[in-house]
């Protein structure tokens, strides 16, 4: 069952991603991005990261995407949509991406013997995931958490400074 879910979420993710970067209209791209991110969220769920699943849905899909759509409306992409969507180097980029994919594949194939992880620890119980997360977050990762808050503050201030006409 997990397998099936994994494949469907994986396909959803990748398909969404591909469509994101190929759609002509930015709005369509944004929607497909949502689809892709939801696929990722599904993968999170499969790995028993319920809290992150929630974060992904709420924050990303609810937050970032609104922001994107907002900007799309703001900067009026009508004209941009009429022009060519890909730049002149797309074929080169595609070739590079394929080569890298090939390389990764090759590396992994060749060194599959070496590809060993430490033995897996028994999966944590399904219950209490959020609690454990909170525990870790506020004990071990208290510092990054605080820093992240500054980061967000900077982001807020920064985007305001940038976007406002006059300050």
């Amino acid at each position, binding site marked *: 069952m997990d397998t099936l879910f994994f494949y469907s979420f994986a396909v959803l993710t990748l398909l969404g991603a591909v469509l994101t970067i190929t759609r002509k209209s930015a709005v369509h791209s944004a929607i497909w991005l949502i689809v892709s991110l939801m696929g990722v969220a599904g993968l999170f769920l499969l790995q028993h990261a319920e809290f992150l699943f929630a974060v992904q849905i709420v924050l990303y899909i609810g937050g970032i995407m609104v922001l994107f759509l907002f900007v799309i409306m703001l900067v009026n992409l009508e004209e941009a949509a009429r022009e060519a969507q890909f730049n002149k180097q797309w074929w080169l980029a595609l070739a590079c991406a394929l080569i890298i994919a090939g390389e990764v594949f090759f590396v992994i194939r060749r*060194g599959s013997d070496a590809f060993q992880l*430490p033995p897996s620890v028994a999966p944590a119980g399904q219950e209490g995931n959020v609690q454990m997360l909170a525990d870790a977050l506020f004990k071990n990762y208290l*510092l990054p958490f605080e820093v992240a808050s500054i980061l967000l503050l900077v982001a807020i201030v920064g985007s305001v400074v940038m976007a406002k006409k006059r300050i």
Partner: protein
Amino acid sequence: MTDLYTATDHFVLLPAIMLALFGCALLLFEFVLGGRDTRNWLMSIALAGLGATGWSLWRQQVEINKGIDTINAFNGSVVVDGFSLLFNWIFLACAFIVLLISYRYLEIEGEHHGEYYGLVLLAQCGMFFLATGMDLVTLFIGLELMALCFYIMVGFLRGQKRSNEAALKYLLLGGFSSGFLAFGFSILYGLSGSTNLHVIAEKISGRSATDPVLLLGIATTMVGLLFKISAAPFHMWAPDAYEGAPTSVTAYLSVGSKAASFAILLRIFLVALPSAREAWLPVIIVVAMLSLLIGNLAAIAQTNIKRLLAYSSISHAGYMLLGLVAGNETGIKGIAVYLVVYTFMNLGALLVIVAMRRADIIGEDVDEFAGLVHKHPVYAVFMLIFLLSLAGIPPTAGFLGKLYIFLALIETGHWGLAIIASLFVAVAIYYYFRIVRSMFIRTEASETAAPPLASSWGIRVALGITGALTLLFGIFPEPVIRFAQESLYR
């Protein structure tokens, strides 16, 4: 584990707290009391923040000087040791000088806002974590904090297309590289099950060098980090960002950001990945050589001095990487010495360009420097010192940095690299001296006719400090060397 926040934690974190506190205060100050007559206050608060930071760093330094190796905090995710203090002092000096030179410059550009000062301090806060972090998460978040601040600062001249463009390019490429870095970090985590660098090192040391996942992780981590220090071929953001950014930010970016990026690079390569040295060493060699080649050659054709300095900073990154290539005590110490020296000389050179910016004159083109010596001999002479230092000619400090790199290379038997690196010194002289020529030899009246330089007490103080130190470190380098020695290897 039981205590969430111990006294040690506080002691370690104090500089960051100061920076964050004053930084946030500055951000808020502008919101609350925005207005034209508050600008002196902004400057004072920012300087006070740096003072407080310096004080807390000094306390740490005193502690370290007592012979304590490292002070761990937050379960080892943040440490204070000689290494972190060395870098923090660099950041502090850099931020201090950047503040000094910004005031008048922002006035002229018409973008004088409290956010700027706040961002300077918060960026330094990010750098603090890059120097002290021992944990992938802390490092990553610190890196992003710093980067975000810089994205905004680069684009701070919102009304100017060049600034917008630079910020956007920097952001897009920075984001791109962060993506790779995050991916690399995720794999490092995956290989070890921990985000602590020491644990990672321990787990990785047991793996074979051909482990594909490890290689994938190293590769992606590496490109992320090399991007940050603007080493070729991941350097291409640097010229554009440097050129488009406000010059004071260019100064900060080229020195502070680079030093911080070197801090994280060294931490990761030396603490987390020493066992994979044979895998990354050849790459670093190639990257260093490419940086020297591209940085120096491309600089030759530049007429914009900021852009020229950007390319030269790429080549400087190449030199510093050669210290990592040598990898021995001398090499690492060499990087530290080089960074210290580079801080002052590069800041100095850029602050002269800052002073060149005045009404109607951009002051970034080589031709605009023509005949500078007639009108402003002091500036011209100081610029000469900085340029000589950048080129690595004794008795300026820059020579010391290069000397250490050569020392390390020769000591470890990398003769070929040493020869190539030394030959690029000659190339560098060529383009630096185009500026010298413009300032001293060309006699066109362009400068004499122009209004006087945008000099201010801040710039003068900064010029004095950087110039004096650049010369002093060149003639009496013992303190710098000893400092680096004691910070890194006691």
